[in-house]
């Protein structure tokens, strides 16, 4: 999978490159809008990550120029402008998604996966991790053959984590996808933390092997830790 990052801020570009390469993407970086446009229109990328504030030719112009050339490569906009008008403008110009800085890297990865998956049928993931098994349709979950008694919210939370095993999920993602809230705010963070604590008590406490982990400062992940 080839990804082009158009970002003029060097540190940001380096961090993105390292993060994406760790996820097995092949990454090119362009530091100006001109260079970005040139690379995107001459080479074949699966995704373009486009910063809006670029010197000389800004991201919106690059995007419009690409779309005028009928290049349909998915474009994800990164920006620190977060008003609804900005979002609408970006999406109108032909962006496929819009992410506001500062963002959690796990969020960026989730969005990228969603964009790359777009149009393809969702692979049926066996909702299974180690000795944890879930029947999402039947709303039943069991660990080690023993059924766990979860509240509706805890079940949704676990299902969301289980659908992306091994991937870190941020509080923003939980707020949006599990709680269906439009914005993240302090009370909600507290609520999420308490739910995670409750879930952990039911999921992990009776067992030796811990599955639900907190990645400090980032979020939560469901994975088997090598012992």
């Amino acid at each position: 999978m080839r990804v082009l990052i158009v970002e003029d801020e060097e540190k940001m570009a380096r961090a993105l490159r390292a993060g994406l390469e760790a996820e097995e993407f092949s990454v090119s970086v362009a530091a100006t809008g001109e260079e970005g446009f040139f690379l995107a229109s001459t080479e074949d990328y699966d995704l373009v990550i486009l910063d809006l504030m670029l010197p000389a030719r800004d991201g919106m112009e690059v995007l419009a120029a690409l779309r005028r050339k009928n290049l349909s490569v998915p474009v994800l906009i990164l920006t620190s402008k977060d008003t609804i008008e900005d979002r609408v403008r970006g999406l109108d110009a032909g962006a496929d998604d819009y992410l506001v800085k500062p963002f959690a890297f796990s969020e960026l990865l989730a969005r990228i996966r969603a964009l790359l998956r777009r149009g393809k049928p969702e692979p049926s993931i066996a909702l299974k991790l180690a000795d944890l098994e879930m029947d999402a349709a039947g709303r039943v979950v069991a660990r080690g053959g023993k059924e766990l008694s979860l509240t509706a919210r805890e079940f949704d939370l676990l299902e969301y984590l289980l659908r992306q095993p091994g991937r870190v999920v941020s509080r923003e993602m939980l707020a949006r996808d599990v709680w269906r809230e439009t914005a993240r705010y302090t009370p909600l963070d507290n609520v999420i933390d308490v739910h995670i604590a409750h879930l952990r008590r039911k999921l992990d406490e009776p067992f030796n092997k811990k599955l639900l982990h907190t990645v400090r400062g980032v979020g939560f992940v469901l994975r088997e830790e090598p012992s």
Partner: protein
Amino acid sequence: MWPLRRPKRIRTRLTLYYAAMLAGVLALYFGSVSLLLFWQASNVLKGLAAEDLETVKGLLYYDDDGHVDVREDYHHHSDWKQVQERLLEILSLDGTILYRNERLGDRTIGGPIFPGEGVHGYSGRTAKMSDGTPIILISRQYDLRGQTILIRVGYSQDLIWNELRGTLLVLILASPLILAAVAYAVYATVGRALDPVSKMAHRAEQINSERLNERLPVESEEGELGHLAGVFNAMLSRIEQSFEQLKRFTADASHELRTPLAAIRSIGEVALEENATPAQYRDTIGSMLEEVNRLTAIVESLLTLSRADAGQINLQVSVFPLAALVRESAALLEVLIEDKQITFTLAGDESVGVQGDRLYIRQAVINVLHNAVKFTPPGGSISARIQCDGDSRVELSIRDTGPGIPPEQSSRVFERFVRLDESRTSVNTGSGLGLSVARWAVQANDGEIGVTSTLGTGCNFWIRLPAVGCSGHG
């Protein structure tokens, strides 16, 4: 180009205005006075002419040739010194001139006889001589030995003007002086009256952001200028107040942002100094990221509030039941409430609807409720109550059993970054903006928010909003 362009200065404008008005009044006045005097003088002249006419009549005779003549001595019968000026003409009724005095010479006065002239008593009028000289004319018909004659006595109007000339001259010469004097007086008076304005302007020029505590001079509370200065000063007070608030806010915001920054810095520096295991490094970075999250949350709230201040947020107004909203908010926070074994109750009218932006009002309710949950000790209670306040307002009150707030501080809880005492700070992990956001959201929806509290008895936060379905509840 002067009369075309209005002078800029009020002082000049008023002066010119008054001078022009006075000139008009003077012209009107002098005109009337002249007319009146002329009229009086011509009446006097007519009286004299009538007397003359009687005298002349007595002195008429036919001379030897059968011509009408006037005896010489009639001059002595008149006591008026202007008698020399008299013009005398005697006509027969067919218009033939029977006699003219020497002064008249070969001119005629009054022209042809008009019907009824001098038949019944005297006819007096202003007329013209044949050479065009304007005159006052008196005429009368008499019977002289069987022949009807018309005697006309005239005086030139110049006589009147000669009499009036002095008076009119004085008036005309005096006008510019009067005008000048009045203009000067107006100029000076207006200048004095406007003096406070220039003083105010001078002072206002000196007031800048560093000297907002200064005020305009108020010479008297009454009067337009005093009122103006008062209004300006009130405005200055408001500006000063917002400015102070802004300064405090900037200072507080910098402080709030500096705290996580300082933490990030020292965590990073300490971690670099030591040799640590990868797990320890991960922990270090994680703790730095936590601080970053804190910074992010603060910046986001600040952005929301500053957009709200700038009026950049559009409200999506709808009508929705308040009770359901409160229940929904409580449900969201349910785990927090249950964890602390707090009893939450909601009482009041289920059917009352609120008109406003549901999303923002929900945020406000959640923030206030969350605040209550934070400060209520385990095992305490939170009681929410919905009550109509008149026909068009509804009040939601949220009462907790927390430590309460000293009444004198209760208005400050809604200010940005205000955390009241240190004991509260220890529990408060928020950004210090939750209640500010709540206040903004409520006020943007035409509502009010407040808190009543005494230390030790918990707080009662209330939110009043525009209601639908309150009529009849009182």
